[in-house]
């Protein structure tokens, strides 16, 4: 369990598989080289305990899938870890550095960058400006130097080149001068990922990167996620769909009602009775009683409608 990290000279895929070899498949399991360690983290909304995590580690260089039914606290956990929400108790460290109390932008500067469930492409900025915004340490973003173009022109050029390369890789280059609002929903997801990479993070946290995109694009996104890991980045992503989790993640963490109820490789997760109870049972299990079926149907319906509506609203705003 305390085995040292294999040399980075060997193939990445092998390292990832090796990394989890001696890790017990149980909640709170220690990882050989964790990049992010969470300790007794809680967040309460009124009477509801939204997050209650005793101990959780994320392995460096690995793709970790975070799954769980609706309301399991996945997004809240993301918000807490990235400084967008404040916990009631608990600590966490990134690369050994304590992160509690850091504001969101400091978390990002530390190398831990997130995306959002509802994409936040800045639709009234061009795709290129979206990308440039991601670059850190820009002289031209400081107040006084910004007034003198010669002080930031060179850096701006370098940033632009880096952005061009990333846009190329994410197949968005032809859209570089369009307003981000003109992109399709899937392209926005890609732009958000590409933009996050402009920050040059060590850990990328993706909140449902595949939600609401067509299957073909989902495959593309999965490919990009794999590429990130191949480049040596660590990835944590939230996902509903078990199939997606299976094809892309090295390790799976399951949450329900705010707690981590299981951890392990995909194969063991799908057979874990607790997971089936808490999560899979509700979707894939034995026949549900009619009332429950009705309720889930209504829930799904509402979700779809809300999504459609949000999309429509977004489209109207651009169109206006």
């Amino acid at each position, binding site marked *: 369990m305390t085995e040292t990290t294999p040399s980075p000279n060997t193939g990445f895929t092998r390292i990832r598989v090796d990394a989890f070899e001696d890790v017990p498949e149980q909640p709170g399991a220690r990882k050989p080289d964790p990049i992010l360690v969470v300790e007794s983290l809680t967040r309460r*909304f*009124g009477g509801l305990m*939204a997050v209650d995590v005793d101990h959780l580690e994320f392995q460096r260089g690995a793709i970790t899938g975070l799954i769980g039914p609706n309301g399991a606290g996945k*997004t*809240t956990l*993301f*918000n807490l870890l990235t400084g*967008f*929400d404040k916990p009631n108790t608990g600590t966490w460290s990134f690369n050994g550095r304590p992160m509690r109390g850091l504001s969101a932008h400091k978390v990002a500067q530390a190398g831990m960058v997130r995306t*959002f*469930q509802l994409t936040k492409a800045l639709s009234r900025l061009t795709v290129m400006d979206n990308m440039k915004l991601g670059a850190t340490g820009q002289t031209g973003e400081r107040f006084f130097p910004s007034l003198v173009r010669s002080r930031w022109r060179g850096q701006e050029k370098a940033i632009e080149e880096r952005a061009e390369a990333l846009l190329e890789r994410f197949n968005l280059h032809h859209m570089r001068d369009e307003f981000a609002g003109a992109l399709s929903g899937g392209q926005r997801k890609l732009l958000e990922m590409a933009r996050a990479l402009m920050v040059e993070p060590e850990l990328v946290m993706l909140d449902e990167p595949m939600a609401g995109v067509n299957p073909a694009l989902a495959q593309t996104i999965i490919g990009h996620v794999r590429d990130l890991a191949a480049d040596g980045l660590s990835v944590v992503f939230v996902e509903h769909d078990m199939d997606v989790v299976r094809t892309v993640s090295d390790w799976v963490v399951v949450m329900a009602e705010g707690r981590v109820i299981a951890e392990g490789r995909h194969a063991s997760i799908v057979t874990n009775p607790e997971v089936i109870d808490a999560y899979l049972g509700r979707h894939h299990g034995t026949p549900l009683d009619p009332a429950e079926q009705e309720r889930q149907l209504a829930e799904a319906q*509402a979700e779809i*409608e*809300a999504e459609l509506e949000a999309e429509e*609203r977004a489209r*109207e*705003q651009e169109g*206006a």
Partner: protein
Amino acid sequence: MSRLLRGAVAGIGLLVVVGTLLWASPAGAQEPGADDPAEQEPGQSQQVSGTLRYKDDSGEDVFVEGLEVTVESADGSFSETVTSDEDGRWAVEVPGPGRYTASIDPDQLPEDVSLRDEDRSALTVTLAEGESRAVLFALQSGEGGRGGSHFFDRAARLSVEGLKFGLIIAICAIGLSLIFGTTGLVNFAHGEMVTWGALVAFFFNVTLGWPMVLSAAIAVVVGAITGLGIDRGLWRPLERRGTGLIAMLVITIGVGILIRYVFLYQFGGFTRTYADYQLQTEGLELGPVTIVPRDLATILISLGVLVAVALALQLTRIGKAMRAVADNRDLAESSGIDVERVVGYVWAAGAGLAALGGVLLGLAEQVDWLMGFRLLLLMFAGVILGGIGTAYGALIGSIVIGLLVQLSTLWVAPELKNVVALLVLIIILIVRPQGILGQAERVG
């Protein structure tokens, strides 16, 4: 678009109604604030002047005659003493620009009059070349300045005043809060609904000479219909058009300015009083406090209305629907509530209550074209203090604000009393933006 045009036509129609209703009112148009002759006096020579007056318990101006005022230059080279005339006016011609001190002897004041602040019996002004200045001694009826020996008597009196004022704010503000809760709209024109109610009642009570109670009832009905009309004619079409909330906020500002100046145009810049219930000195004695019947009625009516509102929100179908929409609009919509209809009711009820609040405010103080706008920030303070969007929060918050405003005059000058309430507003927004009763929003 055609809906919107129809809305615009309806709006203009409404204004025409406003116009004709107020037409018959004695609106000899006069610039507001031009009623202080001392300040308006033109003249080649320079003078320091003023008017000695105070408000008696019923809010009427009383002028102090025969009081000596001494004006001295800063270097002591000039000094003159004059006596105020029957209108409380006094004026001293001074030799040239410079610093002058005007003073009165508090002991010379009539029995029932005192300085609001005993330290301010001498006031200093600086005159530029050719300039004249008015100075105002802050007088009040009754004994004792700030920090005087009757502190607890005053505190008791101010508490009753504050309770009354707070209840009036609450009645005015429930609509503001519910409209925000159900639609997300911050309505900067809500103060005009308050003024509207007061003016409609004024028209029926003073111009037509109808009884006050009947006039008030009509004002509430007219107010409610106006609210409904504004929702149907303006906000609903705008919402269907997809106008953003910030745009709507700016629109309420524009509409508010428009309505305010229509009021000024028709009503003039005067402050006036209703025909009934004005001179009341005898009243219920409660220890140090005397409550005149008008104030007692105001408090009881407000309490009654607020309890009725609370019961309606709690027990009736439409009341529950309002709370549901305010709580979570999407959820309410998906569970089969006709949100637009509910919002219409909210506007009608909110505007009707605001109109009632306006009438009560007009009775408690006076009626003028700006009364609602002046109250607007206090309403915001109450609503936010209690938790914006919640009906009960608006109620409690407003009462606290009313008490705060009045009780603060125990320590600060009356002209700064609103500052205290506004500071509380800002502090609450910073410390607990969800208000006393509101719940923290979930982020993300």
